[in-house]
Structures are given as structure tokens and as C-alpha cells.
């Protein structure tokens, strides 16, 4: 695997621990950054606020984005990312506890690359996260940096 970063946007500390564990078990050795609310996710990706030093840093290979986030929901984050030239082509996977048909529809409408409900059963969850990690970090080829819109 190339030296690419995965950004996990997750407010639940236990889900975070379980996700990291599953990724590690699947042999995903990439650097994994974690942010815990919608605003932090935007700051991280746009290099603003507490992440001002990241303004010229390269984007992660994929963002695993929860929907139920404090401050700014995952769907709002997604809409902002798609509206910005820097992040409009960034691969975003919605990884959520919800299996509401409406969330699924709105995720795709807002430009999600994938929608994955988190299984409650841990064995299934680990399997799901592992295959996501391997696919998006090793198999998928993202646009390295989106060409500026104008």
C-alpha cells in the first residue's frame, strides 16, 4: 500500500476504537487520522482553524464519514466538500449506524461515493471495515489532487 492517509470522522470513542482495531487486524498499515465532529472534519480537509498547518497538505485517500455528528452532520459536511473545488472529487464513504432509506438516498444525492451501514454484530462490522480499508486504501485509485474548478 502506498503512503496514503485515511480520515475517520467518528464521534463515538468506542466505535472509533473498534474501527481502528478492525483496520489494524485487516493489515491496513496506513496512517489513520481521526476527527470527532463535522466542523473538525471540514477544518482538517480545508486546512483551517486548528488544522491551519494542513492548508497545503495532501488530501486523504478516503474519508470514512459518520452521519450523526456533533456541530455539523455528516451530510452537511459532504455537501460542503462537494461544493469546494479542492474536495469535490475526494472519495467519501458514509459509514453510519443508520439504515434509513432516506439517509441512503440523501447521501448519494449529496455525492457520496459509497454508503455502508455499520453492522451491529462485531464480526460483521470488523469484516465490513476491513474490506472498506483494503478497497479504498489499496485497490481504488483516487484523483491525487482535484484540478481547480476555475
Amino acid at each position, binding site marked *: 500500500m502506498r503512503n496514503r492517509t485515511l480520515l475517520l470522522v467518528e464521534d*463515538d470513542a*468506542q*466505535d472509533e476504537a*473498534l474501527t481502528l*482495531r478492525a483496520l489494524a487486524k485487516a493489515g491496513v498499515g496506513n496512517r489513520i487520522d481521526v476527527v470527532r465532529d463535522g466542523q473538525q472534519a471540514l477544518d482538517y480537509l480545508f486546512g483551517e482553524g486548528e488544522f491551519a498547518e494542513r492548508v497545503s497538505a495532501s488530501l486523504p485517500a478516503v474519508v470514512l464519514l459518520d*452521519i*450523526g455528528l456533533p456541530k455539523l452532520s455528516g451530510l452537511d459536511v459532504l455537501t460542503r466538500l462537494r461544493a469546494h473545488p479542492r474536495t469535490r472529487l475526494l472519495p467519501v464513504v458514509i459509514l*453510519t*449506524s*443508520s*439504515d*434509513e432509506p432516506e439517509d441512503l438516498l440523501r447521501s448519494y444525492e449529496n455525492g457520496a461515493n459509497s454508503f455502508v451501514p*455499520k*453492522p*451491529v*454484530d*462485531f*464480526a460483521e*462490522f*470488523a469484516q465490513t471495515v476491513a474490506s472498506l480499508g483494503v478497497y479504498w486504501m489499496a485497490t481504488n485509485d483516487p484523483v491525487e489532487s482535484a484540478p481547480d474548478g476555475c
Partner: protein
Amino acid sequence: MTGPTRPGQLRTSTAALRIVLVYTIVAIAWIALSDLAVDALFNNPAHLVWVNMLKGWLFVLVTAGLLYGLITRLVSRIKQLAAEREALEIEQQARLERRVAQRTAELQAANEELNSFAYAVSHDLRAPLRAMNGFSEALIEDHHAELDPAARGHLDQIRAASARMHALIDGLLALSRATRGDLDRSRVNLSEIVSRQLEDLQIQEPERTVEAIIEPNVVVEGDQRMLEAVTANLVHNAWKYSAGLERAVIRFGTTQLDGQTAVYIEDNGAGFDMRHAAALFKPFQRLHRQDEFPGIGIGLATVQRIIHRHGGDVIGEARRNEGARFVFTTCPRESG
């Protein structure tokens, strides 16, 4: 009542009689008084002829004027009453519309509340469950050697409990989802759906021998997706509660419910005690212990919600160890 009072009643026969009476009284008075007046004022017989003629013409003029006045008054009274009635009808209509709008808003608010509740359930209650499940698993994976069989048994209990809670949450969501969305009525062939659902169950449990007696082409009007959920729950129950019988029989067909054509699904299984039937359709209420027949008690609550949403009725009848029978309609009684 806060609205305007009802408009006065007008009886046409009374009004006409009143006009005739006034006319008669005036005419009688005129005839009596005018003759007296003429006698008193005019003594010359030569004048009497033209005085009498003049008196006759005057009579016609005065009574014509009188009739004109009386009839005009009556017509304007009729017009006024009609206007009052129309105003009242408009007011009543407006009040009715306001009430419908208010009820609709209340219903929408209740629905939205239910939706956001279901949403919270689906998002927020699942995460802690995943954690319970996940960390128990992690404990087994990472510390297997240090755990004695008793400790592993306790962990199994934790995981069984979280699996059960998972089922409860999914059931709650299924219940709230069952009646969300628009009711899309079409003609639905329940016989085909029930046959398919029974075949699926037979594939899942090939060791069971169940005789299915299905009346063909039972077609009802209703929402296809919702009615599939209804029969799925009833068929599944019939299947479940007839387990352990050597000769299980599940029947599906049409019958009558309060004089209306209805559909039934019955089995010859465990049944239930009719003394507890009041709890039958309540969410999370069960008439069997977990060690008799496991379950979460959401299926019949879902069935009842869907049937009520259709305006229909559902009843359950049973005898202990002789089987249960569920009968439902999918249309309000007036139109069905």
C-alpha cells in the same frame, strides 16, 4: 356555540295569509268608513254618482299601494334570510376547514415526532450495542488464554443480551417503518404472497412438514409493501407456533368479519389463552415465555398498525394447544 345564530324561519303560507288579512281588514274598513263619510259629506244625490265612482277608483289605488308595500317587504325579508343562510354556510365551511387543517397539522407533528424517534433509535441505540458486542469479542480474541470457561460463559451472556437488544431495536424500527410513507392502494394477490412466504420458510427449515392449504387468487385492495409485511408476520407466526407438531396445517382463505369479506390465516399449533388476548396486539407484549417460543412481540403490533392504517380491522382467536386464527380486512366498513 360561538357562531352566528341560525337565520329566522319564514313560512310562506303564513306570510301570504298575513298579506291577505291586512288587505281584507283595510278593504272592510274602507268600505264601511267610506260609505259613512260619503253619506255625511254629500247630500246632493246628483253628486253621489261621481263621488261613488271616485271612491271606487281611490279604493283600487289605495289597496294597490298597500299590496305593493306588503309584497315588497316580504320579498326583501326573503332576500335577507337567504343572505343570512349563505353567510352561515360559508362560516360553517370555513370553521370545518380550519378544523381539518388543525387536525392535519397535529397528525403531521405526531408523525414527525415518531420519525425522529425512529431515527434516534436507529442511530444512537445501535452504537453502544456494537461496543458491547465488539469489546466482548475483543476480550475473547486478545485474552482467550487467561479466561476460564465460566468467564467465557459470562461473555457469551453479554453477547446474547446485546443480540437480543439488537433484535428489539430492529423490531421497533420495523414497527415505526411499517406505516410510514404514503398508503399506495392497488389490487394485491395475497394468495401468491402467502404461498411464496411459506415456500421461503420451508426452504429455511426443510426438516419441517407443514401442510399448506391456500385458497387461490384472494385479491384485496391495499398497499402491496405493507400487506406483504402483514402476511409475513402472520405466516411466520403460524409457522413458528405450529413447530413441534407432527402434522402442522396452515390455512389461508377468505371468510366474513362483521358482515364484511375478510381474510384469515390459521394454524393448528400452540394457540394462546383467550384470557390474555387483550395484550395480543400491544408492542413488546407476548403471550408465550421465551423458553416456550422466543420472540420480541412486535409482529402483531405491526400487523394491527398496518391494518388500522388501511381502515380495516384485525382480530385474533385461539384455543390453547388447538391453534390460532387471525382475521383481517383492508378497507373501512362503509365502502367495503
